[in-house]
């Protein structure tokens, strides 16, 4: 919430023709055609999502119409049908893989980011470079041995395989992102803490962690989005027992055929949690996506 809004208004306000401040007030009330354009484009981009949610509340007859129906008697039947098809397991699996991997990412990533920022180790740049380079390794290059290893240790179709891989997938982002938050901690605060004779651990817990906790929350949300949406590992390494929501959705099509209303209900259930997480985290989204390079 904090940074972007106040910054946002400044240059945008400057955008309107260089009128004296008195006139500016009148200007603002005037209808801005570009604002209308923005609304239309925004609604256009959002439309497929809106349509998905809308269709989820239709009966199949209302979903299959050559003229799209906007007015219909809403029903929860399709959601019920999706639950009957065992979406519960997939939801729990997605929830588990997402929550546990995010927790692991934070447990591993926050201390690592600390060691690469406030009390930096030797070769900090090398370590950072390494973390980022793992993100650039295409996942297909690793999937074959991963499949062989995972099946050899009996983790095929086991949710823990995904937990571990999702942790590895998100850890570099978390390290970079958390590091950018740690670097915002004023140096004097640390000095003061160490002069007080506080141990690193105490300084961390009592001084630094409270300061970076919004950063931790934002990092966690970004990890949640990526873990929840991940499909490639899930479809390669799980089948029935450990299937996550995206895999369930694919299987649902194969098993049910194209019943749109049901599909939309399932897709809505798959997409909704992260859309909400993303809306909450939207002001920190850029920071996570750019590895902390843009704030």
């Amino acid at each position: 919430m904090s940074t972007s809004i106040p910054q946002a208004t400044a240059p945008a306000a400057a955008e309107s023709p260089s009128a004296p401040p008195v006139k500016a007030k009148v200007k603002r009330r005037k209808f801005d055609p570009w604002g209308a354009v923005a609304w239309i484009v925004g609604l256009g981009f959002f439309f497929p999502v809106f349509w998905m949610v809308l269709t989820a509340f239709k009966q199949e007859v209302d979903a299959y119409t050559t003229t799209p129906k906007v007015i219909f008697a809403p029903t929860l039947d399709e959601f019920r049908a999706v639950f009957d098809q065992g979406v519960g397991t997939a939801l729990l699996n997605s929830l588990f893989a997402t929550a546990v991997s995010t927790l692991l990412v934070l447990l591993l990533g926050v201390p690592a980011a600390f060691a690469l920022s406030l009390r930096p180790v030797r070769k900090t740049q090398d370590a950072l470079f390494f973390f980022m380079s793992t993100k650039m390794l295409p996942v297909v290059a690793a999937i074959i041995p991963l499949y062989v290893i995972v099946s050899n240790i009996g983790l095929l179709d086991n949710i823990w395989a995904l937990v571990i891989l999702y942790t590895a997938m998100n850890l570099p982002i978390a390290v970079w992102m958390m590091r950018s938050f740690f670097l915002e901690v004023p140096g004097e605060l640390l000095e003061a803490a160490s002069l007080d004779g506080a141990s690193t651990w105490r300084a961390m817990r009592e001084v630094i962690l409270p300061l970076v906790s919004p950063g931790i929350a934002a990092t966690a949300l970004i990890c949640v989005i990526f873990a929840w949406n991940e499909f490639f590992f899930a479809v390669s390494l799980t089948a029935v027992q450990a299937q996550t929501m995206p895999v369930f959705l694919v299987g649902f099509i194969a098993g049910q055929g194209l019943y749109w209303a049901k599909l939309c209900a399932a897709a809505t259930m798959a997409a909704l949690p992260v859309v909400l997480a993303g809306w909450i985290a939207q002001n920190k989204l850029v920071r996570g996506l750019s590895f902390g390079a843009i704030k």
Partner: protein
Amino acid sequence: MTTSQLGTERPGVETEAEHVARIKKTQDPGVSRAEGWRRRGPLLPALIFMIVVTQIPFLFTLYYSTLSWNLVRPGSRRFVGLSNYVDVVQDKTFWQVAFNSVFFIVATVLISIVLGLLLALLLDRVFLGRGIVRTLLITPFLVTPVAGALMWKTAMLDPVFGIVNWILPGEGIDFVSSWPRASILVALVWQWTPFMMLLILAGLQSMPRDILEAGRVDGAGAFQLFRELTLPHLRRFIELGAVLGAIYLVNTFDQIYMMTQGGPGTDSANLPFYIYQRAFLGFDIGQAAAMGVVVVIFTMIIATFALRLIFRSFTGKEEAA
């Protein structure tokens, strides 16, 4: 002026250069061995975890790529040296699929950047409900790609019941069958435009106001201001968006899996999808591994460039490290 626009510029925040200086200062002789380990302690679990989970599989990929090994034929595993690579290089499909990969990456990045720039310029204005419009616009990036691709394939592009055909006059067009690559591209652009928009919007909002003001006082027109001041300022952000987008898009898989299954034939497959098919439908481990290695080599070329750029964005200076 552009060097340190990204990242660590806010007052009271240490710049990367200062930070590096402090690392240098603190680590040289002053840091004892015990202190060194105490500092390294928090880093090691993450580092070891990443090495084990990401590097070891890759070493195996290298090893498997020298084997002739079909999973469904037990006892077929034997060492064949580099012959898998020879096969890969001679495989016409591989090159066609590699071309598709490049096409999807380049086209998505370019179109998303242009659209993202336009959207960012719109969102940089003041209008009623701007926050809501921004929220609407980022949603495609958040939606589970599998679900988003499903919507495009069915609700939007279906020949009979799809919305697009309802809007367009004339006979229903089966977009996904007739133009599989273009259809996938639409779904990809829809997903990635919000990403570019967010990055470029961050750039616009970090634009120093007084410079624009000065330009206006000097009598520059809106377009001139944009070309001479805004665009150069945005360059760094656009570059970063292109590079990050490319890194993420190398792994494109979900849309292809959902919309076309790479078909017809392999016309719309990219490398991840083709390798997936070879490994999990053909069970040809050796070949698939060799392709994986080739992909990594390609990616490393982009990545070297990417890493340098990101470090530069982050450090504000090319060789601060």
